[in-house]
């Protein structure tokens, strides 16, 4: 008349554990531990590589000397030396700081700059350390050749992603994508030059420094478009080895 095979009754503070409860719990413990281990393997291995960007200490404590330009963002125009053609190098500071404040007083002057590069493909940005790493070149009298004028490469419509040039260059890995969007915005707000990563190259470049149509900093409206695929229109301008994408609108015709 009693129910057959009564199940064990167990509450945590009991001293004896009924055998059926014990069996299920031992089974569960094994399952739980094995499950945690396999979940960890699956979730950790399912990762895409963030690619090859990285820091590169090319200057080894030395300095580069060039003409400082501050528009749309601080760029150092380093004249050609020997076999090396002239370069236009984007500049940023440490952390999520740009170097506008320090570069501005030197606009158009000869500057002496040190630091560490981040490099990824044709993107390169010089990260300037503290104090002495950015100053007027001594003596100013050393006449630098005038940087060559920028050259227009015409109108383009490009598909790609807006990111900050520092993280995109390899300071963070990954430094692009939606998960990184807020971080990229912080960098850009902090003055780190934003870049456009194009899905198709223009004259061998897939990275472009971004600017507004009139050559100023990237329009703030574009902060809403960082980290995600987007189609932009504008003109492209070349300064030495750097291409600048001067955005004037979205592909759908809306102005930026």
């Amino acid at each position, binding site marked *: *008349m*009693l*129910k057959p095979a*009564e*199940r*064990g*009754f*167990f*509450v*945590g*503070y*009991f*001293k*004896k554990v009924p055998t*059926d*409860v014990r069996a*299920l719990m031992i089974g569960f*413990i094994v399952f*739980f*531990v094995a499950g*945690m*281990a396999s*979940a*960890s*393997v699956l*979730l*950790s*291995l*399912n*990762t*895409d*590589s*963030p*690619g090859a960007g990285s820091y590169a200490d090319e200057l080894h404590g030395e300095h580069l000397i060039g003409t400082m330009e501050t528009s749309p963002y601080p760029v150092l125009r380093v004249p050609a030396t020997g076999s090396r053609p002239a370069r236009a190098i984007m500049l940023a500071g*440490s*952390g*999520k*700081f740009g170097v506008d404040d320090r570069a501005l007083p030197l606009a158009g002057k000869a500057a002496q700059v040190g630091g560490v590069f981040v490099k990824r493909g044709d993107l390169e940005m010089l990260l300037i350390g503290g104090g002495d790493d950015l100053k007027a070149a001594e003596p100013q009298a050393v006449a630098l050749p005038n940087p060559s004028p920028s050259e227009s490469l015409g109108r383009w419509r490009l598909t790609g992603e807006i990111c900050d040039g520092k993280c995109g260059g390899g300071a*963070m*890995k*990954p430094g692009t*994508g*939606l*998960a*990184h*969007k*807020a*971080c990229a*915005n*912080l*960098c850009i*707000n*902090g003055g780190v030059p934003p870049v456009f990563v194009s899905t198709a190259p223009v004259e061998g470049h897939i990275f472009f420094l971004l600017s507004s149509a009139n050559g100023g900093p990237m329009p703030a409206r574009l*902060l*809403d*478009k*960082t*980290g*995600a*695929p987007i189609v932009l229109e504008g003109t492209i301008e070349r300064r030495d080895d750097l291409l600048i994408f001067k955005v004037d609108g979205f592909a759908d015709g809306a102005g930026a």
Partner: protein
Amino acid sequence: MSVSYKPVIWNRSKMIYDGVLLAGIAIYILIFLKVGPVLSPALRDVDLPTQRMRAFGSLALLMLTIVLAIGPLARIDTRFIPLLYNRRHFGVMTAIVAATHAYYVLGWYFSYSPTPQLTALFTSNTSFTSVAGFPFELFGVFALIILAVLAVTSHDFWLSFLTPPLWKAIHMSVYLAYASIILHVALGALLDRRDLALGFLSLGGLTLLCVLHLMAGRRETASDHAASAKAPEEPWIVVGDLSEIAEGRAIIGASPGGERIAVFRSKGGLSAVSNVCSHQNGPIGEGKVVLGFITCPWHGYQYRPEDGCSPPPFRERIRKYRVRLQGSTVVVDPQPLPLGTKLDPVAIPAELLPPTPKKEGTA
């Protein structure tokens, strides 16, 4: 008073429970951060803070999914009830793991900037109108706040301070936290990386939880609808036959209003009490009489069969009902008696008792 009565703060089950829990957490994190980068060159290329936030974020989601599965599992198969016993520690650990994830996120994505960390968290992305690019972090923040509140109020002090109905209501918001996490992951990492394993964990976990809750819910509503038959005499209801009740156990009936009533059989007597534990609404009728006390299966709160009161110094009370035997049929008056009413168990006539009564359960 029985020494077994008090659900002591610390006991062997809890230590095993916590030990296994911590081992599971340690194994997950160690494999993710130590073995993962060795096995996967792609993960090795990802920087360490990002590896850490992914490890702790995915672990928090996994733990939240498991902790939410325990409830319905225990409803579907009572042998899972021991997992419920110490579930609050599972919940608190989940909150700690989630906070660790947030700590790494703040210390990486929202640091080193001219904008203070917390300001940055709330202001750096304002793409509220787009799906791709939505500030998914805010869903994480919302969930973390809920998890933190639940962790802090998980102690029984808060249960009695806030009263069980309010406490229960607050703790139901764990489902809000879960929904928020699913959005956090879907709009963030999933849209960004289309990671299959993470998709399986979040969307597969969501499906599994829905199925488990529906299954458990169907069982509940089915038994609610199977309201007990009316006895010839109003308003009494037929709960079952004496032969269906094992010694020390109960059968459960439902009043026309849906209130469930458990009739316990112990030492030749029958006592009817509410099926709802005053601790956390545990199903008392699935419990057992242990050392003379009706004992809830969830956390072992105990009540005297005669008046539904916990033995001093505890003050929990459950309602008593009038019970009677008509032949071998057990009938109950679904009108609850005032809390604390003393009513001696109804003696089972000698001819209905089994020849050798079964021994009562031990603790």
